[in-house]
């Protein structure tokens, strides 16, 4: 009898082991290497998306970048300068300690003190409005600001909360990379970080949220685009980000072992220009300097927009992966304007407008831009240059690596001195992602006048100025009531874009390529999360 039992036991174990032992692993091939596991170290998306598996924020974001409860379950503004956040109860750190308001206070203090050596810590979020935190009880905190601060929930999605009992007195970055302080509350636990090689996390069985499909997740950086695709096809990885647009049709083909997931991202690609009296890269048709910069004339700017065939760019350059636009925030975002339509391609009207503006002979410009920052950036610039040239604006293209471009566009002019930045270029291609999911930062950064004191216009490198946009945007920034704020932002955007403060081209459509046996639900904010991927039933 005992023997029988024993045999039955052995047989049963043998039968059941494969089922029990089967761990599901998802390997993600990512374009950029994670520099650090310290969630307060940088603002690079490749760092954030990995850390988000381990650490959580007070406010999380849904697939369309709308704020949803994270470590905070609810929030409200008590008065003009105070926001109250209720914290989620019964949340445990990965080591079993309970999560409380003290951890949030600790995180604020850690950021305030400055992260030694960090290249771009999110500490600026706290400086912005001089945010001060106060613990009311273990599950409640209040944040006070110097003035009304409507975007508090969005900003609380900017940084992760770290454990007070683990992250105190540790060496920034280093002790997060070796796992000592990498104790979070998130759906995955830290296993291993090997710089340049892989990051491994495993499922946290005690997480409060929905159980993700994968037991283990491995992030592997594969910088080379062709190699990343090869790794997917070879089965080394299960899903990759940023497949190259020329490969998309082949991957989408019927009978392919792979599938594409795509979503229009929050990143708008646009052409910006500079408004000085004389521009170094704008000349008359005969090559002489153009006195009174033609770009100052709104008719010229409109002509430049009408001369761009955005559909052709989408179809011939982007492989279909773009959403032509006349807006700066994507459809569905807070602050999107339905009234701003895409400028339809009309070369004839463009020429007429140039004529009306007194440029029947046209003029010459050089279009600058990065060649390794946005999807197909250089090809877009070349296409725009051809389209403009056909409309009468002779355009040369000068593309350069992003590390050169961004310094030059901000302060490349010889007139530039510290505290008084002057850009070098006259017309350039750039991009902006509305990471907060709503338009306040976008309007403030792109359309408001450049003003270091107010922190406005920090990406308005061409120094566009419009008093009406400024006053609307400033008012929006201090209006807590969302219903009152929305029309202000929409109006500011409409005034700025009807005046062609910049010329929007399209929103990048982001793609992921994965095994056909998987399902991936992508996000507008370009990040790749393991819980967005599951096995096809």
């Amino acid at each position, binding site marked *: 009898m005992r023997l029988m039992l024993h045999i039955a036991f052995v047989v049963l174990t043998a039968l059941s082991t494969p089922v029990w032992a089967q761990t599901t692993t998802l390997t993600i091939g990512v374009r950029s290497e994670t520099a650090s596991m310290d969630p307060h170290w940088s603002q690079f998306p490749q760092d954030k998306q990995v850390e988000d598996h381990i650490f959580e924020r007070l406010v999380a974001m849904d697939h369309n970048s709308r704020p949803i409860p994270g470590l905070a379950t609810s929030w409200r503004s008590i008065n003009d300068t105070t926001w109250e956040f209720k914290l989620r109860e019964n949340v445990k750190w990965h080591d079993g300690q309970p999560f409380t308001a003290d951890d949030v206070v600790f995180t604020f203090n850690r950021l305030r003190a400055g992260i030694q050596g960090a290249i771009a810590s999110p500490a600026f979020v706290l400086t912005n409005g001089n945010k001060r935190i106060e613990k009311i009880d273990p599950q409640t905190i209040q944040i006070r600001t110097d003035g009304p601060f409507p975007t508090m929930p969005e900003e609380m999605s900017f940084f992760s909360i770290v454990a007070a009992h683990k992250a105190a007195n540790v060496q920034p970055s280093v002790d997060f990379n070796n796992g000592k302080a990498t104790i979070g509350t998130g759906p995955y636990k830290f296993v291993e970080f090997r710089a340049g090689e892989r990051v491994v996390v495993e499922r946290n069985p005690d997480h409060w949220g929905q159980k993700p499909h994968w037991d283990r997740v491995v992030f592997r950086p594969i910088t080379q685009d*062709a190699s990343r695709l090869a790794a997917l096809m070879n089965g080394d990885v299960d899903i990759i980000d940023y497949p190259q647009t020329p490969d998309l049709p082949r991957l989408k083909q019927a009978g392919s072992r792979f599938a594409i997931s795509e979503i229009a991202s929050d990143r708008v690609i646009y052409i910006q220009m500079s408004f000085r009296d004389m521009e170094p890269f704008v000349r008359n048709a005969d090559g002489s300097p153009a006195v009174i910069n033609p770009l100052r004339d709104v008719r010229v700017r409109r002509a430049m927009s009408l001369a761009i065939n955005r559909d052709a760019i989408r179809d011939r350059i982007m492989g279909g992966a773009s959403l032509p636009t006349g807006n700066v925030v994507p459809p569905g975002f807070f602050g999107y304007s339905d009234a701003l339509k895409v400028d339809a391609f009309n070369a004839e009207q463009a020429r007429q407008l140039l004529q009306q503006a007194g440029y029947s002979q046209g003029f010459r410009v050089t279009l600058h831009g990065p060649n390794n920052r946005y999807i197909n950036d250089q090809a877009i610039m070349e296409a725009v240059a051809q389209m403009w040239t056909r409309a009468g604006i002779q355009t040369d293209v000068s593309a350069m690596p992003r590390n050169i471009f961004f310094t030059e566009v901000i*302060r490349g002019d010889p007139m530039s001195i510290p505290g008084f930045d002057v850009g070098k270029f006259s017309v350039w291609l750039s991009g902006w992602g509305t990471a907060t999911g709503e338009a306040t930062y976008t309007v403030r*950064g792109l359309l408001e006048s450049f003003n270091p004191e107010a922190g406005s216009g920090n990406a308005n490198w061409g120094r566009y100025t419009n008093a009406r946009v400024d006053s609307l945007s400033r008012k929006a920034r201090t209006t807590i009531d969302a219903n009152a704020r929305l029309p202000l932002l929409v109006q500011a955007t409409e005034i700025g874009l009807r005046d062609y403060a910049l010329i929007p081209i399209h929103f990048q459509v982001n793609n992921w390529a994965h095994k056909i046996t998987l399902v991936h639900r992508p996000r507008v904010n370009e990040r790749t999360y393991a819980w967005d991927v599951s096995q096809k039933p």
Partner: protein
Amino acid sequence: MSQFILRRLIESVFVVLVMTLIVFFGVSVIGNPADIFAAQECDQKCLADLKARFGLDRPLWEQYFLFLGNALRGELGNSFQHGLPALQVILQRAPATLELAFAAVLLSVVIGVPLGMWAGLKPEALSSRLIMAISTIGFSVPTFWVGLILIMVFALWLGWLPAIGRGQTVTILGIELSILTWNGLAHLALPTFTLAIANIALIIRLTRAGMREVMFTDYVKFARAKGVAWSRILMTHVLKNIMIPVVTVIGMEFGGTIAFAVVTETIFSWPGMGKLLIDAIEVLDRPLIVAYLILVVLIFVVINLIVDIIYSILDPRVRLRAAQT
């Protein structure tokens, strides 16, 4: 000999100094890393703070002298990206690159020398002509192309080898080696061959040229007349003499292979120093770039020294001359 080594070292200090000057100013002229690191929501004040924190707001010459002062105390500064001492970041990834470089040089000698000797011995044979033709191709095709083709054939079509990454490692004396496991070797195969292919071609050509020259020298003729066995003539007399230029080239190429395995490492996502350099240039991580290049200069200096020492072992004339002076 010691005098010679001393002179070499003094020279190299000078080379390092000039190199830091060029790299430091060169990288700074390109752009400001803060512009790349900062989030777009980081406003003007936040950007200014960031620059001040890294001393990037000071005049360039001041930054340079600060760097020199620290460098004399052995501190090459922290990498902006990683926040760790730049040298430490590089050395962490050195084993992977050294392993790849050693494997590549070994492969090129093992394949290159016998093929080159054969081609030199029987220059008219069809096999020799074939070897030479292939070596010309090996010379001419760019590394990245070879790498991608190898991935396509061996990883995608045949499915024999993994496409990217470093395999399973074993830690020996604190150094992680992947060469000791099957999985590691499988991962090593394609990048090694990619890196070796140009060197194989080079060594074939050098060996062949050496063979053609040495085979007609008096001492070989004399040995043959004396009736010495062919194998002995080849292994003792000929091989030693043709190895002198080959050793020089191996030395030079080894340095180059370590320092600039950049392309191969990028294609195969090999977690070595070369990939680190490319990423550092991308974000203008100046301390890392400077430290890397200082290390490369030192590697070259050391390799040249070793080559000179091997010379004197292979060629008694060098030893004699040194003894006379």
